[in-house]
């Protein structure tokens, strides 16, 4: 039987059980779709991370409490209380390479304005924070040294706050309340978009760190110290000096490990990239497993189909089909099933990744090589899982098969 008829016969056979065929492909559809989606998310995230590296700020060094290790066990920031405001001030004052240092303290609080409220993150920072982050103001002013020293109840808010609490009207001069404490809004931040970890950076309220410590967070220690170094070339020197200074301030002996971690923005980005890479890999592995399960589904249905069509096989042999015609027919059916699954999966994956990319505001990156691989893999699944049932069909005794009820 030539290839064209083989195709025709297989298509007709699948059409005879259209619903079943479609359900059979579902496993492969989900598998391939998942592969495409995860890979494209991984791509998008990586591109995003690279963009974020530059947006993180100019020559920024971050100091975290506790020891964080790259790629190993990661003790998250804020779990160990080792960084004080004085540490930040010392870094700023004693290290010549450092332009500014801002101790950071974060809290999640409900913010009230009139009869509206919004759950947001309140960041305590120094007056230099916007300069460190290279974050422009849209209107109003940033709080100054004086505000920090006096722990004034003033705030600079992000775009999300303006949208959610003020419905877009100018909030400057208005007073919001956090647990009853009034905060006067003195400035509005420019739009920033998504962060490395996928959170909306515009959903933010900046207040002096002194105010945050005293009235909002209930903490006594900084979660992070944001440090700006004057020049890219001085980064490693500054990193070393900060380490030395903090070891000295924390009275750490030579045999003791750092109780803080100093990372440059590149290292932070690297951590994030590494994390997203591992996530992509894990998700990809899960997707691969579901593709495998899809293949087993195809094998299962093909086996059922072979048994069910025993008589058909007998008839075909009686009409002149060679063993290899029967083998090929069932093999082509299995491959066709997995190919259809692959194509639907690719289309589904494209739609999914497009939706996700749009939701996250990422650049859309369609992974063409991954599509090719996923499709090739699903064809392989068809061949691999279709072969056994097909061979079973081809080896059938035609006399028995014709007698089969």
């Amino acid at each position, binding site marked *: 039987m030539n290839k064209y008829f083989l195709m025709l016969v297989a298509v007709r056979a699948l059409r005879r059980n259209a619903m079943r065929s479609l359900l059979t492909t579902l496993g492969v559809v989900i598998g391939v779709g998942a592969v495409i989606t995860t890979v494209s998310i991984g791509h998008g995230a990586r591109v995003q991370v690279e963009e974020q590296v530059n947006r993180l700020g100019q020559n920024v060094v971050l100091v975290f409490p506790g020891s964080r290790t790259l790629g190993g066990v990661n003790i998250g920031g804020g779990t160990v209380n080792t960084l004080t405001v004085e540490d930040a001030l010392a870094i700023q004052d004693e290290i010549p390479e450092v332009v500014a240092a801002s101790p950071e303290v974060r809290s999640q609080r409900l913010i009230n304005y009139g009869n509206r409220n919004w759950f947001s993150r309140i960041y305590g920072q120094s007056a230099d924070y916007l300069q460190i982050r290279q974050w422009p103001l849209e209107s109003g002013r940033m709080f100054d040294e004086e505000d920090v020293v006096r722990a004034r109840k003033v705030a600079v808010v992000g775009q999300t706050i303006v949208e959610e609490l003020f419905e877009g009207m100018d909030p400057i001069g208005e007073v919001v309340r956090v647990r009853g404490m009034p905060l006067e809004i003195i400035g509005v931040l420019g739009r920033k978009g998504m962060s490395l970890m996928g959170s909306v950076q515009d959903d933010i309220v900046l207040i002096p760190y002194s105010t945050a410590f005293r009235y909002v967070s209930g903490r006594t220690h900084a979660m992070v110290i944001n440090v700006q170094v004057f020049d890219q070339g001085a980064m490693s020197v500054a990193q070393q000096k900060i380490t030395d200074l903090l070891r000295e301030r924390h009275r750490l002996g030579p045999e003791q490990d750092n109780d803080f971690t100093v990372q440059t923005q590149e290292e932070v980005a690297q951590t994030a990239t590494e994390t997203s890479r591992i996530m992509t890999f894990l998700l990809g592995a899960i997707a691969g497993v579901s593709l495998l399960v899809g293949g087993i589904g195809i094998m299962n249905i093909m086996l059922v189909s072979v048994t069910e069509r025993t008589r*058909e096989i007998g008839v075909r*042999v009686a*009409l*002149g*089909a060679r*063993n290899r015609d029967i083998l090929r027919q069932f093999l082509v059916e299995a491959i066709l099933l997995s190919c259809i699954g692959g194509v639907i999966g690719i289309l589904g994956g494209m739609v999914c990744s497009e939706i996700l990319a749009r939701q996250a505001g990422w650049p859309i990156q369609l992974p063409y090589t991954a599509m090719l691989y996923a499709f090739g893999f699903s064809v392989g699944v068809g061949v691999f899982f279709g072969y056994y049932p097909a061979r079973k069909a081809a080896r059938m005794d035609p006399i028995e098969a*014709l007698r089969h009820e």
Partner: protein
Amino acid sequence: MPVIQLEDIRKCYHVSDTQDVHALRGVSLVFEAGEFAAIMGPSGSGKSTLLNVLGGLDRPTSGTYHLDGEEVVALEPDRLAAVRNEKIGFVFQNFNLLSRTTALENIELPMMYNRQGFTLKEIQRRAREGLEMVGLADRASHYPSQLSGGQQQRVAIARALVNRPAVLLADEPSGNLDSRTTLEIMEIFQRLNAQGILIVMVTHEPEIGQYAHRVITMRDGRVCKDVPVAEPFVASREKERLPADTREDASDE
């Protein structure tokens, strides 16, 4: 030259170490072109095994089988498949049409396995001709479940003949049909036979055997009687004698 020449065909099934079943114990038969033979006998007499051997589905344990000048017993499987496809047409008791496959597509099937390399156009044209030959041109896109038993058997006959085989083998072709439909099938057989095709039909109904020109009776794996039918029934004439209300086709459209 005879179309079929069987010489001392034996078939022995090895059931267990202590038991062998001899289905055929030395059958020698010759069929000429244009013959219409009926093979009869009780169940277990070996008539089905003989038909399977004739159809190239089963290999005899020993003996020789010449079909259209070609020795079949020793053929390799692929060539045997080609012989089945080109030289033999099968008609089965239960029709054996592919379900959920239209009448036309069923008839197309043997041509798809043909080594001549038909194009799809040719195949479809010839399948249509086949349907016309059995009077079902208007049922081309019907599925077997939408056809009556007689119509299904006619589709099966069209399918059996579409590759223009040397011999038509029928296994209890009327086993599942009522008497009028049986006559219709016999009518088709007699018409085809008149055109020169060799028909070998297995049946257990003596009356059906009377439509053939020759009746071979088997018993215990041997041919015990092989006689010509002096005056075969003519199906078209018998049909007229039937009462009109037994028409099957009219009832299930």
